């Protein structure tokens, strides 16, 4: 996989960011998210009137003796957010100018990973090419950020990506509910629908980051060309003129719009980025504007 740059000096721009609170979190001792919930937690917060259905073990009988009314004790609960990241490192991601798509995907993953690690979220990371690479999990705390960067830089580029199978394996290994960030160009022969449905079936909230380059829009293609698929090695002889190129771009746009529409339909997050974008701008503005970050 081509190396990518990730400047530590840029981290200060990510310090104020955190994942949105409505993303389902897991209960944990070291969680950074405080939730008011009766009967759980260790730190007392308040009383409230008893309502049928409350655990009777939380009734404060001393207070009942003085007030002749039933009150239950309310404790403050701490939760953490489980974030999984799947980065596509197939050969189709090894295109792009000025940076490759896979490099930009890794930079974004590092940025989002820093945001999650700095907030004490639990992070699971894996790359996938033809198959899923070993999952780096769990990562928690900023101290694990170098491990994450090393993992990404050492991930091999796979010939082709099987998104559905990789999502199934990843969700099988990381069973916690939470946010699943998919960074890919989604130019997979099998399609993305099944993979996304599978992830949602595991209870994952999805952040789909589609990384595209100008070459995916047919830039630089004209005349009689023999185009070769970078992943499968298959080729076609195509004569490309303006009309053909316009139809091709319309198809790509429809494909991307279909992906975005599916995400909107199921309440998932979708972000499309270009290799011409800087990853900090992507994280701080594009992804933040999708309300994943706050």
């Amino acid at each position, binding site marked *: 996989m081509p190396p990518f740059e990730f400047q530590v000096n840029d981290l200060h721009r990510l310090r104020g960011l955190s994942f949105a609170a409505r993303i389902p979190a897991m209960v944990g001792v070291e969680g950074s998210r405080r939730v008011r919930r009766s009967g759980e937690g260790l730190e007392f917060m308040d009383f409230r009137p008893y309502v049928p259905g409350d655990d009777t073990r939380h009734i404060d009988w001393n207070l009942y003796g003085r007030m002749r009314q039933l009150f239950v004790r309310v404790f403050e609960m701490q939760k953490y957010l489980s974030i999984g990241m799947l980065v596509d490192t197939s*050969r*189709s*991601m090894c*295109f792009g100018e000025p940076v490759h*798509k896979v490099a930009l995907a890794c930079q974004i993953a590092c940025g989002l990973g820093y945001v999650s690690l700095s907030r004490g979220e639990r992070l699971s990371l894996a790359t996938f090419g033809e198959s899923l690479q070993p999952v780096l999990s769990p990562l928690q705390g900023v101290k694990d950020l170098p491990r994450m960067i090393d993992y990404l830089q050492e991930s091999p580029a796979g010939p082709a990506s099987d998104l559905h199978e990789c999502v199934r394996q990843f969700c099988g290994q990381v069973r916690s509910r939470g946010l699943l960030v998919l960074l890919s*160009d989604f*130019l*997979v*022969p099998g399609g993305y629908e099944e993979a996304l449905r599978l992830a949602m079936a595991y209870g994952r909230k999805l952040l789909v980051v589609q990384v595209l*380059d100008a*070459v*995916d829009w047919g830039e*630089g*293609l004209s*005349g*009689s*060309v*023999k*185009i*070769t*698929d*970078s*992943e*499968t090695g*298959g*080729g*076609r*002889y*195509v*004569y*490309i003129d303006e009309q*053909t190129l316009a139809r*091709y771009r319309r*198809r*790509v746009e429809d*494909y991307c719009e279909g992906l975005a529409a599916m995400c909107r339909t199921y309440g998932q997050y979708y972000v499309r980025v270009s290799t011409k974008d800087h990853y900090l701008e992507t994280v701080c503005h594009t992804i933040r504007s999708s309300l994943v970050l706050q």
Partner: protein
Amino acid sequence: MTWARPEAFWLLLLVPVLVVLFLHRRRTTPITVPSLLFWQEYGRPVDGPPPALALHNLLNLLVQVVLLCLLIFALASPDMPQRRREHLVLVVDTSATMQTVSSDGRTRLQEAIGRGEDLLAGVPDDTLITLVEAGILPRVRLKAVPDKGAVRAVLSALSAADVDPDLHEAVRLAASIRVGDWPTRIVCISDFVGTEELLANGNSVTLVQEQVGVDSPNCGIVELAPADGQEGLNVTIGQHGLDGRRATVEVLAGQQRVGSATAELKGPLTSVHVPAELAAGAVFTVRLTPEDALPLDNVARGVWPASDRVRVRLVTRGNPFLEQAIRAQPTASLQVVRPEAWDPGAPADVTVVDDTEPGLFERINGRAVVFMSQGNAPNQPGSTGAPLSATYWSPDHPVLRDIDPSLWRVRRLAGGLPDGVESLAGWQDQPLVCQWSPSGGASSQSTDSSLGHVVIFNFDLADTDLPLRPAFPIVLWNAIRYASSLTSKTPPVARRTSEVLELRGEPAMASPPTVEAPSGESHPMLRQGDRWVWLDTTRQGVYMTRLGGTTRQVAMNWCSARSSMPYVPMARAADEPAPPPPGLLASQFALPWQVLLGLTLAAGVLEWVLFQRRVLDMRQV
């Protein structure tokens, strides 16, 4: 098929260039893309099956090569045979020169018929054919018939006449025969060159000249005329190609030779005098040797003219001046009668009346020269004492031609002229010489020519010095000839063929006069006003007309000056200057040009359609 611009085929060298450019232009550029996910519907897979691959690969190239070849084909201006139905007009010259015999024994007409049959064999069966015979008058023998057999039959039955052709009228007649909007092609078969110029007025028809015959030396009789002042015949001989040869002219009366002469031919025309004694009205034959390719003009026939002597009757009681003056004319036959013995009905050409007596003038009914006498005129004249001389006269009048009447001295005028006289010369307002018509008309134009004129000298010969003057015989003979309506022209011994035979006779006669052609056939003459005519005089020979009991012979010859002209061969293809290149817009190549342009446009459209449908994308590197 011929090519007007064969050098255009050098452009075929562009075909390899086109192939190279095609291969270069169609060369594919290998490009690796992230995914072929969206390219599946475009182009052709590299490892896919190659159905009709070669055809698809070559189709574009073939279309371009065909297009280039068509353009080169058009630039080469092919002379493609016209497949449109056409109207073919054959104009065959049947003039006298077409009887010229070539070295192979065939006449030019036979050669022309053969040329026409070859032409018929080469045209499609749906061609309409018109046959025009170009004789002295053009004649349409067949008009727009598709039957080649009928045309061949009429064509082979053509015969040459002894006349000159009028090719101009024949070609104009041929050009006027149109069949709808069919293209008309006129083929003029003749030994005459130059019919192409006849239609140089931009007519839409196509005129083709087919010349027959070869150049042959020829000599022929051009003109026959009686010798002036000597017995015999003057024969004019025309020639070409025989300069320096000696020619012999024989004059035959029946089978008997009555004269001959030999002369050396010099220049285009040679005049030969043949002494011969021939009786008036005798038919004679003139034969010229050596024989040549055209025997027609080596024989001529003639009818020796009757004597042109004028019978003059002098009515006088004795006048030696008049008698001597009339006898001085060698062609005058004088008869002197006394007034009491004069019979106006007796045959005479002219009556000269001297010293009119009472009652004599009224008996004059025309063709007379009258010298009025004093006191005997119908009107009593005046008199004068001093000699008179003419103060005016008509110098152009035949009576006073070459005469100066002012030199005459007239002591007194006779007077007593009848009404309606026209003065020819006069003193003051008194006529000295006048003419009068018995029909009452004063002018010669209104006078009945059959009655002749009456020339009146208004004085007595005894009262003038005119008889003593040298001009007296002249003015007297002028008056006699004018009064008799005779001309000084010698009657021709022969006429040219195609001249109209004409007879004067009673239109209401029971049976028309007949004419016997040289072939022996007898035909009734045609009535035309107060005359009888016969138009078909296209054969050389002696025509005999019979009117009542009168028989008249007229010789007709084809004395053609054209026969002495050299044969001008038409410029052949090798001699012709190179025609201007017809080009794409020349009318004669309109059809191929349209076809080629259509094919080129079709090829261009096909190329565009194939390109748009991406069929050409299915090709191989």
